[in-house]
């Protein structure tokens, strides 16, 4: 069912491509006889501990299913994860200052109990899906360098090849990817603790940080702007660029600080078919949801609301395994969908296939598959919009809803408080091998596997009016890092994805036959927007006939939707579209890569700028090159500004990318964790008497030196002291 590009096994040849646009960069190590670097022993992580091979390798070695708990047991030290504060930020009407409630979403706070331990808690029950398969086959997304420039670690290979070389050969050591974010209990326990007050208290207004602005932009559904803010945050804040390092995506053969998904719709009804598309999860898959009078909708809605309550009623309607809902054959759970939101549009066309896809993506996002930056990002909403949300007709768009639980991000947000520790601790114990169950089984207890996630999201999306066909061009945030890109043809969607700066796409192609009893088939396609030479954009696809899904569910057999998603995610997307450690880069790789970035046009130049600055901070790129590259990417003179030691200067340099926004009021510092936030705003000046102020006595420092001996800054009274905040990176 799955289409796999046939690949040859990678060879140990690296490639250098001459960068014509960058003749000024010396590009040593390429062209001549080449150098050879051998692979020295097992790869280690940042603590020097050996990294356990990833699951696909385990599967290959064992020839069978990996134990469900292997992620918890693998002993791989966990990466520090930034704490997630559940600060609830609200804009006032002036838009300049905010009230910040700290800990609002803690366990006793405003997150409904339904969130606690919902999705992720189910991980322990996960079945082992495809684990045995995964190691046995060729990598699905693989191949040579992206445009010949980068060494490429591939999951499942201890050494990796680089195809398509032009003129040079050398071998490069590569790391076996660690598993980012698995066994996440400990770190997330910490994260939960940081939002732990559980009570709401207002503190003095502080200036919005760029991270806050990003979260608000997600709340507005403006994904592109949100990412610009995230990238700008990394460019302005040194701590942030350390916290959110580049990670490697072998499918792209490029590094990213965040992997961005798009979800698109293709819709091909027969010419004589009228009405709304039947969807998977509809109890009668052959029935068409026709436009009906609003009064009918209201009646039905009552029924839906009752039947679909999370954890209640056995989840009969959606999973087809309870039977309770089917007593109302006309009562499609998707009948009264509010299709004005991106979520609504997705469910309108893709039903619970789309819904479960979002679950998969969300689970992966929460577990660092797509970069730690996206784990941090969330949907925040301006306070004034909360008032509108109360009106009867205007059911909140889950991505825009005020208050902590926010549709697609609901579990994430709830989890960031007390719930998260518990939820992901369970994930660690169970591993995510079988996230089939993981995404669907939790929370509801006795509820069947299929029903719970769909019903919880769907409930958010039910409106008072009958579902209307959404605007084909609807584009918006499903949740941070995943955006809906509307309805179009496959090639148009691919173009759209590129224009939006995305990395991978999932396209639902819904086809409806024109017979009296229409049959519907949905195909889910996995698209790589950065295919390597000789590869197709479509990495994998899977077909589901709605009729077959319904009959298998009726018979209580394993859910074809879950199997299909396993094929798309575990066997394909997780191979290439999952963060892994950066390969061991040398200066010549980096210079080549930077040269490539300079020669390309970028829809969002801040993304490559982050890459350049990361390389520079890592010591892999000389300052003069970094300045030139930033000048080329961002505009003449920007290099010096972006690399300036003065944060305000950097911030000012960013303003050209945010026309109409007043960045001058932006807060600084520690924004990456939220825990050490400081502000340049006047409101904070009085709060800390011992801040450094020119013309005032220096704040005392009493601390250990590098040898562990305590000393004080004031010990040096009587001398002129140059205090140098430095680091060797």
């Amino acid at each position, binding site marked *: 069912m799955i289409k796999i590009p046939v690949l040859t096994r990678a060879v140990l040849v690296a490639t250098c491509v001459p960068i014509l646009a960058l003749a000024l960069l010396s590009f040593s190590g390429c062209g001549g006889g080449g150098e050879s670097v051998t692979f020295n022993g097992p790869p280690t992580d940042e603590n020097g501990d050996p990294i356990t091979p990833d699951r696909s390798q385990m599967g290959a070695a064992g020839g069978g299913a990996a134990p469900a708990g292997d992620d918890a047991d693998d002993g791989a030290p966990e990466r520090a994860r930034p704490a997630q504060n559940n600060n609830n930020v609200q804009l006032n009407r002036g838009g300049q200052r905010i009230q910040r409630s700290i800990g609002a979403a803690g366990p006793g706070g405003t997150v409904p109990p339904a969130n606690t331990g919902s999705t992720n808690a189910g991980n322990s029950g996960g079945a082992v899906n495809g684990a045995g398969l995964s190691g046995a086959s060729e990598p699905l997304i693989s191949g040579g360098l992206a445009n010949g420039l980068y060494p490429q670690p591939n999951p499942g290979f201890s050494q990796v090849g680089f195809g398509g070389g032009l003129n040079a050969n050398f071998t490069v050591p590569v790391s076996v990817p660690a598993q980012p974010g698995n066994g996440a209990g400990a770190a997330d326990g910490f994260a939960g603790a940081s939002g732990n007050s559980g009570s709401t208290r207002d503190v003095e207004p502080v200036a919005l940080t760029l991270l806050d602005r990003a979260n608000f932009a997600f709340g507005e559904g403006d994904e592109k702007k949100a990412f610009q803010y995230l990238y700008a945050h990394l460019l302005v804040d040194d701590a942030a660029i350390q916290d959110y390092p580049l990670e490697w995506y072998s499918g792209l053969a490029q590094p990213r600080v965040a992997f961005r998904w798009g979800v698109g719709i293709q819709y091909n009804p027969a010419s004589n078919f009228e009405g709304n598309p039947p969807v998977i999860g509809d109890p009668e898959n052959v029935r068409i949801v026709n436009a009906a009078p609003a009064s009918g909708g209201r009646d039905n809605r009552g029924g839906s609301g009752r039947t679909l309550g999370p954890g209640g009623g056995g989840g009969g309607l959606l999973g087809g395994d309870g039977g309770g809902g089917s007593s109302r054959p006309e009562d499609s759970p998707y009948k009264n969908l509010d299709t004005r939101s991106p979520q609504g549009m997705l469910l309108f066309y893709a039903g619970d296939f789309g819904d479960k896809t979002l679950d998969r993506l969300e689970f992966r996002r929460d577990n660092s598959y797509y970069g730690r930056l996206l784990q941090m990002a969330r949907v925040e909403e301006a306070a004034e919009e909360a008032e509108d949300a109360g009106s009867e007709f205007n059911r909140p768009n889950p991505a825009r809803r005020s208050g902590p639980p926010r549709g697609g991000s609901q579990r994430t947000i709830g989890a960031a408080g007390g719930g998260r520790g518990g939820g992901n601790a369970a994930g660690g114990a169970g591993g995510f091998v079988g996230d089939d169950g993981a995404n669907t089984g939790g929370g509801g207890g006795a509820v069947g596997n299929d029903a719970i996630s769909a019903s919880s999201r769907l409930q958010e999306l039910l409106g008072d009016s009958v579902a209307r066909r959404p605007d084909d061009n609807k584009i918006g945030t499903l949740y941070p890092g995943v955006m809906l890109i509307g309805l179009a043809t496959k090639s148009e969607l691919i173009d759209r994805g590129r224009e939006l700066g995305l990395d991978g796409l999932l396209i639902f192609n819904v086809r409806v036959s024109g017979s009296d009893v229409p049959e519907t088939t949905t195909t889910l396609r996995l698209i790589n927007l950065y295919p390597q030479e000789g590869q197709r954009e479509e990495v994998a696809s899977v077909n589901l006939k709605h009729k077959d899904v319904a009959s298998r569910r009726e018979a209580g057999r394993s859910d074809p939707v879950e199997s299909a998603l396993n094929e798309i995610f575990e066997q394909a997307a997780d191979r290439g579209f999952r963060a892994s450690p950066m390969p061991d880069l040398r200066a010549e790789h980096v210079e080549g890569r930077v040269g490539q970035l300079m020669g390309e046009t970028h829809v969002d130049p801040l993304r490559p700028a982050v890459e350049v600055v990361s390389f520079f901070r890592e010591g892999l790129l000389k300052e003069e090159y970094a300045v030139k590259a930033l000048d080329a990417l961002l505009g003449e003179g920007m290099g010096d500004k972006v690399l300036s030691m003065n944060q305000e200067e950097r911030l000012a340099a960013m303003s050209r990318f945010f026309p109409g926004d007043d960045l001058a009021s932006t807060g600084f510092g520690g924004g990456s964790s939220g825990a050490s936030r400081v502000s340049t705003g006047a409101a904070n000046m009085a709060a800390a008497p011992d801040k450094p102020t*020119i013309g005032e006595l220096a*704040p005392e420092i009493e601390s250990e030196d*590098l040898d562990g001996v305590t000393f004080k800054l004031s010990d040096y009274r009587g*001398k*002129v*002291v140059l*205090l*140098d905040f430095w*680091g060797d990176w």
Partner: protein
Amino acid sequence: MYAHERSLVEQLADKPFALIGVNSDADRDEIRDIVKDKNLSWRSFWNGPQGTRGPISRQWEVSGWPTLYLIDADGVIRHGGQDLRRNLDQRIEELLAEIGHDVQLEHDN
């Protein structure tokens, strides 16, 4: 970047001047080795295992590295920020002159 600092320390060795670092590397063992390797003779506070998010840089509101502050003999912060790096030698000379030490700094680089 170390060259300039090393040069300052050497030239001002017999003056009432001290270069005090606040090191923001998370791994103290590693940075101790680097200090040894590169022969960095001045003393540094350690910002703690949180690295750049450690308590000292937080207290001092540092979010860019390197960041310099120049403190006079009375313990008063006199200069900091971008201008300081550009005019560092001159500023040091001025503050030393205030306490009666005339110095002309020169650097090879």
